[in-house]
């Protein structure tokens, strides 16, 4: 599916994404989504209890993914993991548990307020010393080639304006033999014409 977007439309979408997720970061996920998220969402998606049992409720409730990337395969001890579109950082914190102190996790998000929220969540888990969060764009990853054994992403790629560029970047920073594990949204039915407006619908 290709979409022809004007520069102005792309700018509107980028800003709209930042605005929406800034709002989510400030107000908590309950403000803006219609589907189960938070602790209940994690339970429904089968996140392993023993990995998250010491996560404070406030951390769990900041989860707003669309699936469980770890159900595609575990992160092994010692691996370097990148979470693209990490949001409030819950998946990155789970990955940090799985990779252990010999590994490391970096969470990247385009929304500065989400990165702040992730850092606040990390602060509540002082036992995790192998995670960091930074602001950045999936289409231009601030990492060298062949850096990570695993890239995870949960509900982020659907927001990228140039998905091919973003996935090429993921390929670049993955190590040879590295694994990409993505949960994302797909269209399962045709949008009715009145809802198919490109800009407003991009990050609904």
């Amino acid at each position, binding site marked *: 599916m290709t979409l022809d977007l004007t520069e102005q439309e792309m700018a509107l979408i980028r800003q709209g994404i930042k605005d929406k997720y800034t709002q989510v970061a400030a107000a908590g996920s309950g403000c803006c989504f219609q589907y189960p998220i938070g602790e209940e969402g994690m339970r*429904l998606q089968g996140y392993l209890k023993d990995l998250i049992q010491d996560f404070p409720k406030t951390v769990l409730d900041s989860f707003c993914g669309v*699936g469980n990337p770890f159900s*595609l395969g575990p992160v092994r001890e010692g691996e370097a993991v990148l979470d693209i579109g990490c949001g409030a950082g819950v998946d990155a914190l789970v990955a940090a548990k799985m990779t252990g102190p010999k590994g490391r996790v970096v969470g990247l998000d385009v929304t500065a307020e989400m990165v702040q929220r992730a850092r606040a969540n990390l602060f509540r888990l002082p036992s995790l010393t192998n995670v960091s969060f930074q602001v950045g764009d999936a289409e231009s990853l601030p990492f060298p080639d062949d850096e990570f054994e695993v890239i995870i992403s949960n509900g982020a790629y659907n927001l990228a304006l140039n998905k091919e560029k973003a996935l090429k970047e993921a390929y670049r920073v993955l190590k040879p033999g590295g694994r990409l594990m993505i949960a994302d949204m797909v269209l399962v039915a045709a949008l009715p014409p009145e809802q198919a407006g490109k800009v407003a619908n991009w990050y609904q």
Partner: protein
Amino acid sequence: MDFLALFRKIGFKSAKFVKLTGFKSSPYTEGALFYAEKPRVVQEKDVVRSQEDALKAYAEFHGLTFGPGVLDLKTKYLIALGASLAAGCDP
């Protein structure tokens, strides 16, 4: 947007759609799980493994050449050194 087509275009391998997640974010959209791998680079040990028989035969030939015979080991090595110098072998 077709993840699988993009994965293949970019060079990922073992790309697959695994399943829907049950997260219906709207009547028209649902979460889905995708997996892909970046291919490994062919490494020296992979080449060695694929040439195992030839390398075994060469090692046997080498052993027999330098094994006990009419000429002593020192003479054999000096001959080999002379041959490699004449051939311009790069160490």
